[in-house]
């Protein structure tokens, strides 16, 4: 016979739900990947997609063991026809990038929400994206002409710096105001200031740089290449693993900072790790794809509702997966809805993400705590 606590602590119910959600999300992700590759000006049948992918993967793996004997075969698959070139050079990197960055952005938002213990904290709402844009703007307009050219790593570093700067600023304010709405207002104001500074820089920029910055700040996965995918994996994977390893202290921290401290969580170091991981993730996304709004807020919430638990060890992987699915589909819509014209990714994410925020605000009002 099972005791009442045994059943309540027994996570098997939650585990089953978790596994179910994960499987559904994975299926969605694969479906999304295929749909994304399949649709567009040139339609590639799903069977071709799988054939080409399997071939390339087989050669790629064989290459690892045979010191490049299969490179030619691999190139042959990639360059076989227009379809294969579109697949390998354009659509595959793009959809992978959308998936990875979407997941990264969601985890980043989740970490910020933990940090501020506030369900609508997110890189975009707190002005962090605008901060990244500001520093990237300064880099493109003032530093690049001086240095010569800018690499994507340099851009990423600028975005990271900007994100961190504004995160710290908001952190400073958050210690003065406990009220959630006040913090949001401050975030929005900080965002405006950053935008003003960016606009100021643009006034003194030449047309070419303005186009560069505007393209960047439109937020889009278009023009994705393998180099970007590689960077995204290298930066985001470690940060997401760090986030996952922080699951246990995150759980304690969600109870309260003082309780966490009383249970032996080294709170200062923990908060620093949380902030760094979150900034790194959002900076990586912002640097590669530009500011993408509302994913960071909406996805963690959707995930919690799906899982019906807030246990970080279950929530974090699901958040990543859910963010990946969310962005893959949003990018599909952005790309195909008014084809050949592409919408910016934030247009789509806002349409789906902002209502979630409104819903959250109303729900919190009802439960009567701010």
């Amino acid at each position: 016979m099972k005791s009442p606590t045994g059943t309540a602590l027994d996570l098997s119910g939650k585990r089953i739900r978790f596994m179910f959600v994960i499987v559904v999300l994975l299926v969605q992700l694969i479906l999304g990947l295929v749909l994304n590759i399949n649709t567009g000006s040139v339609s590639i049948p799903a069977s071709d997609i799988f054939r080409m992918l399997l071939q390339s993967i087989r050669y790629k793996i064989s290459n690892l063991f045979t010191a490049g004997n299969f490179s030619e075969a691999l190139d042959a698959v990639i360059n076989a026809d227009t379809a294969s070139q579109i697949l390998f050079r354009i659509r595959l990197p793009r959809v992978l990038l959308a998936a990875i960055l979407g997941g990264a952005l969601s985890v980043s938002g989740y970490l910020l929400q933990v940090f501020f213990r506030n369900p609508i904290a997110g890189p975009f709402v707190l002005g962090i994206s605008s901060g990244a844009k500001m520093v990237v703007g300064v880099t493109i307009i003032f530093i690049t002409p001086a240095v010569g050219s800018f690499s994507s790593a340099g851009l990423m570093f600028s975005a990271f710096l900007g994100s961190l700067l504004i995160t710290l600023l908001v952190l400073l304010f958050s210690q003065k105001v406990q009220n959630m709405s006040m913090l949001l207002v401050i975030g929005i104001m900080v965002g405006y200031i950053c935008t003003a500074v960016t606009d100021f820089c643009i006034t003194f920029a030449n047309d070419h740089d303005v186009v560069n910055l505007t393209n960047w700040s439109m937020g889009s996965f278009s023009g994705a290449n393998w180099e970007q995918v590689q960077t995204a994996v290298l930066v985001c994977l470690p940060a997401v693993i760090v986030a996952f390893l922080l699951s246990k202290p995150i759980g304690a921290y969600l109870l309260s900072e003082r309780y966490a401290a009383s249970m032996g969580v080294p709170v200062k170091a923990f908060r620093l790790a949380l902030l760094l991981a979150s900034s790194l993730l959002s900076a990586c996304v912002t640097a590669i794809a530009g500011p993408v709004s509302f994913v960071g807020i909406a996805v963690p919430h959707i995930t919690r509702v799906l899982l019906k638990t807030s246990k970080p060890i279950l929530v974090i992987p699901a958040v990543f997966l859910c963010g990946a699915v969310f962005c893959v589909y949003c990018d599909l819509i952005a790309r195909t809805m008014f084809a050949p014209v592409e919408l910016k990714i934030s247009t789509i994410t806002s349409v789906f993400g902002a209502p979630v925020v409104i819903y959250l605000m109303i729900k919190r009002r009802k439960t009567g705590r701010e």
Partner: protein
Amino acid sequence: MNTAFSTRDLSVGYNRKVLIQGINIDLAPGKILTLIGPNGAGKSTILKTITRQLEPLSGSVYFGERSLRDISGKEFAKQTAVVLTERVHPEMMTCAEVVAMGRYPYTNLFGRLTEEDKAAVQSSLERVHALDLASQDFSTLSDGQRQRIMLARAICQEPEIIVLDEPTAYLDIRYKIELLSILRDMAREQKTTVIMTLHEIDLAMKVSDDLLLLDGERVCAYGTPDELITSNDIEELFAIHSGSYNLLFGSVELPKPEGMPKVFVVAGNGKGTPFFRALQKQGTPFAAGILFENDVDCQTAEMLSDHVIKAPAFEPITDNQISSAIKMINGCQYVLDAGAPSGPLNRANRELILYAQKTGIPVLTDLKGLP
């Protein structure tokens, strides 16, 4: 003496500013120490210091034989658990999961609960009589239930010392009593040492083994409730000048009505107390008598009036007492018969009523006749 917790010349405060100094505590295992004092007297500051949320400004704190400075965060968490005043709002967590948080110092990197951990959660929930809440969502609980769960979380940490900051805040009287008796049981049965702050002096007197009285600058008294009850420390501490506080009962009365008595209440056997209080509410000064010192009416009358004619317990009323009562009645406009039973010892009270009727002073049996 075998001590679970002690401090030596401890000074506490914020930002290098000393708030209270010279704190010396010695607490045996299984004892309950309660810190009492007015708001802002530094109770929470002391609790924060002994739970390592603030650095001691000088002096030392010992848990058992070891100095607080030499204990690592994880070790500390295994021997000390806290219940804080702040309200927590965990989302989508069952009570059992909140309680299981107490296993934090014992679980592995991923916080995986072993069978032993689960058993600890179960027994902690049993301790606070909340087993039926185990699978309920924490956010749906009442304040009383929440506090019990937070206590269970602390118990689940299997500490030698539990520190509670105003555990009875937000609770109604039934839950206050329930919570404090759980603490008492733990102290007795498991030798858990309890350090807490309370606002209710009366409850503090009843539940604690030791009391530490704070006035915001210093420790003004430290001792057992029996030692403190005989001194004026508590009344002085809370500066209860306008109202009065009965230490024996821990009950509070509003200030005495001022002026010469207008009504003489013939009371006894507790019958007078409701009238005393009603007169206080009207603002009518009154006298009362003749009351034996062991009568509850005597306790309340003395808190609400300066004019009480008393007689020593278990002894007959003397002529002297009767004549001072008659003098008092002559100065009053009314005599109120509270309806106390009369027996061989207090027959004099009957005589007082007869005297009033004879001399034409109106005798009332309720307050309706009063202007």
